[in-house]
């Protein structure tokens, strides 16, 4: 049964392919760490290159897959160092990653997140190797009704983030949902909140949203603080550089759980790293945040989303390799790359082109080890980025982001929109809102609405479809439990102790 894998390692361990895996890992880390250039763009930009270089199919795929996994590693860097998520999956990483950097623990934070990424990805790759065909069958059981229930579950799990200021968290999430409704309505084609501007037809782009909300607002905050006399940027000198074994061991269950969550969510077509990160983070906060320190620089709060987003990247290969259905935007582009090589993914691929299927999976193992080896020692180097004055660093990143956004849109409207969102983000921050719920509302709200409407068009308007299947019923119960138990449980316990 595992012949294809043995064959795969044979292929992946050739000098050319190892070289490509290392190159891809490096490039991917770079793409991921630059806000604005995520894995999709990185792959789409390099795909023609791989093709023109005349690389054989398996080598090209190994290169592109290494870029993909590398980007998921890279996304965390600017999250931790600058509070600007490098890509969609790294939004939750900012929550505890950046506070750690503020405490002078940027080095250990980078190291721990690299290890979490490694563990999460490894769990997912093993899952992919062992269960891919079986899991693919489960993945297609998720229809619109099940996805809707999953989104309800994801929103319910966000309730845990309401900690200090529940109303502001809720308002933030709703604002995000509102922003997500801009553009062509995806089922009827009606234009919503576009004010006759074609630039808004496609909705507000994720990159524009993230850079505006996080990076631009950060610059505005800096401008404000620059005139004050209260010392430097508030960052202490760099403390120790490496993460300690104790810290890693303390997070071992966090990584395991989150890796599993990320893998499962990654398999489902249509949900990606951002959903995986959000569910893993909130689950972990619920399970292990005893002293309410999530959000202030808790190591577990950092490990959870990082393990999950890398696991979901590997998980999204399951539907792509076994069914020929892309599980994420990035795998959709990879699928296009396979088509160029006349390879048709699907169950037949494992028997007909074992060197491609096996080589790809083997290269995921190798790429992952390369990424860990690359990222651990470099943590100290990257942490030094913080010693660059922030008034050089953040505007520098913003310029990169401007150029990146312009490159993708060839249109100044996107830049203006980004600035407007930046001002909006600045106001929100001044008013004491946290930005993560806004982004989550924006991502989840769209998915939730689309799937609700799809489900209702299938049923002809009958609401019953939403809880008809076992999967959706289970998710509804779980969501309900998430909302009610934290409130109910202490009361029950109290009652019990009183009786005793």
């Amino acid at each position, binding site marked *: 049964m595992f012949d294809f894998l043995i064959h795969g390692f044979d292929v992946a361990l050739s000098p050319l392919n190892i070289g490509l895996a290392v190159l891809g890992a490096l490039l991917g880390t770079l793409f991921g760490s630059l806000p604005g250039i995520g894995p999709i763009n990185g792959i789409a930009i390099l795909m023609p290159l791989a093709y023109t270089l005349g690389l054989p199919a398996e080598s090209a795929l190994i290169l592109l897959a290494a870029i993909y996994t590398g980007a998921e590693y890279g996304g965390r860097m600017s999250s931790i160092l600058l509070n600007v998520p490098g890509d969609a999956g790294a939004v939750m990483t900012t929550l505890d990653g950046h506070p750690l950097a503020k405490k002078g623990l940027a080095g250990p934070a980078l190291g721990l997140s690299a290890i979490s990424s490694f563990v999460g990805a490894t769990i997912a790759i093993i899952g992919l190797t062992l269960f891919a065909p079986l899991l693919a069958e489960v993945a297609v059981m998720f229809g*619109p009704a099940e996805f809707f229930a999953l989104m309800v579950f994801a929103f319910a799990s966000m309730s845990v983030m309401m900690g200090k200021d529940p109303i502001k968290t809720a308002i933030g999430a709703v604002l995000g949902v509102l922003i997500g409704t801009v553009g062509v309505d*995806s089922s009827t084609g009606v234009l919503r909140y576009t004010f006759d501007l074609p630039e808004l037809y496609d909705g507000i782009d994720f990159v524009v949203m993230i850079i505006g909300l996080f990076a631009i607002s950060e610059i505005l905050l800096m401008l404000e603080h620059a005139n004050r006399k209260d010392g430097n940027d508030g960052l202490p000198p760099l403390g120790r550089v490496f993460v300690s074994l104790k810290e890693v061991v303390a997070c071992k269950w966090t990584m395991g759980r989150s890796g599993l969550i990320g893998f499962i969510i990654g398999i489902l077509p249509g949900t990606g790293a951002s959903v995986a990160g959000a569910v893993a983070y909130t689950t972990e906060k619920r399970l292990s945040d005893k002293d309410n320190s999530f959000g202030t620089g808790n190591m577990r709060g950092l490990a959870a989303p990082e393990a999950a987003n890398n696991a979901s990247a590997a998980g999204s290969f399951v539907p792509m390799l076994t069914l020929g259905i892309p599980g994420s935007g990035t795998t*959709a582009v990879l699928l296009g790359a396979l*088509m160029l090589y006349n390879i048709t993914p699907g*169950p037949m691929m494992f028997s007909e082109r074992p060197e491609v299927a096996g080589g790809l999976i083997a290269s995921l193992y190798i790429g992952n080890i390369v990424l860990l080896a690359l990222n651990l020692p470099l943590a100290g180097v990257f942490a030094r980025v913080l010693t660059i004055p922030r008034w050089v660093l953040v505007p520098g990143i913003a310029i990169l982001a*401007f*150029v990146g956004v312009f490159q993708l*849109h*060839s249109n100044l409207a996107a830049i203006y929109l980004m600035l407007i969102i930046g001002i909006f983000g600045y106001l929100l921050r001044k008013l004491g809102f946290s930005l993560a719920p806004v982004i989550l509302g924006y991502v989840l709200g769209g998915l939730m609405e689309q799937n609700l409407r799809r489900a209702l068009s299938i049923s*002809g308007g009958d609401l019953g479809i939403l809880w008809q299947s076992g999967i959706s019923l289970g998710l509804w119960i779980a969501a309900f439990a998430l909302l009610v138990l934290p409130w109910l449980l202490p009361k029950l316990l109290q009652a019990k102790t009183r009786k005793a």
Partner: protein
Amino acid sequence: MKINKGLSTYASMLMLAGGILAASGVQAQSDATECIAPAKPGGGYDLTCRLAANGLEKTGTIDKPMAVSYMPGGIGAVAYNHVNGVRDDDPNLIVAASTGAAVNLALGKFGEYDADDVRWLGALGVDYGAIVVNADAPWQSLDELMEDLKDNPGDIAFGAGGTVGSQDWMKAALTAKAADLSPRKLKYVSFEGGGEALAALLGNHIQVFTGDLSELQSQLESGKIRVLASLSEERMSGPYADIPTAKEQGYDVQWPIWRGYYMGPNVSDEAYQKWVKRMKALSESQKFAELREDRGLFPMSRFGNEFNDYVLEQVDQFESLAKEVGLKQ
């Protein structure tokens, strides 16, 4: 360190301004050829641009490699407005388009500009619509599906990767019309891209998927789906040879999805004809035929005025269909 405070304020402001300037500077033109894909990287328009870019370069038709740039927004509307408003006479610029753009033009979604506001250059390849059901579905032929659809339109959900009114929806609407069912009564579910719709078909969440032939290749081999009909003029070759056309089953539904290009409205005749010649030569070369096949496209060769007329006629047809089903007044 005190100087730093004031300095830092200005530095940040300068860099913010510099960012905008740097970004607008990228727009500077050169004499090298360029193809705008009116979408994000990685989609169908990207593929269309790369088909021209790789083809022209590999056959030596152009000396310098053709640049491919992206201009997403309004499902192509932003690029359409850009070419009409800004680069209306650029002799080196072509823009990727497809049947989907013609549908949007028919629906008036490209703002103030109409279909005859640009110069349609030509098409280099074509894909065809297909009517697909799950391998376990009860219908063995298009006829059986159509009969069932007439009796129980509420039990059969169609799905595809576009909104109501999109070219994906048009395939389902035309199929319904062929069964004497009003497209308004049709149960249609829109997904984000053909991949999601296909997944929903495999999971039996929808019953019929109106996709494109080229995206079905891998599924055909796996035997998990059944293609009831291809919406082409005649049977296709290769892996699709066993798929009957809708026409030969007695339903006259055809849906070619061409992949072509347009140029600005004020491009000189000389420059336009030069491109027509280039494209024609390209489409006749053997090397290009391989490139096209790699991308899962079938041959189509319409250039210059012939193509221009073809597109305008198509837009007219779509417009009357849209009016018929109440999508447009």
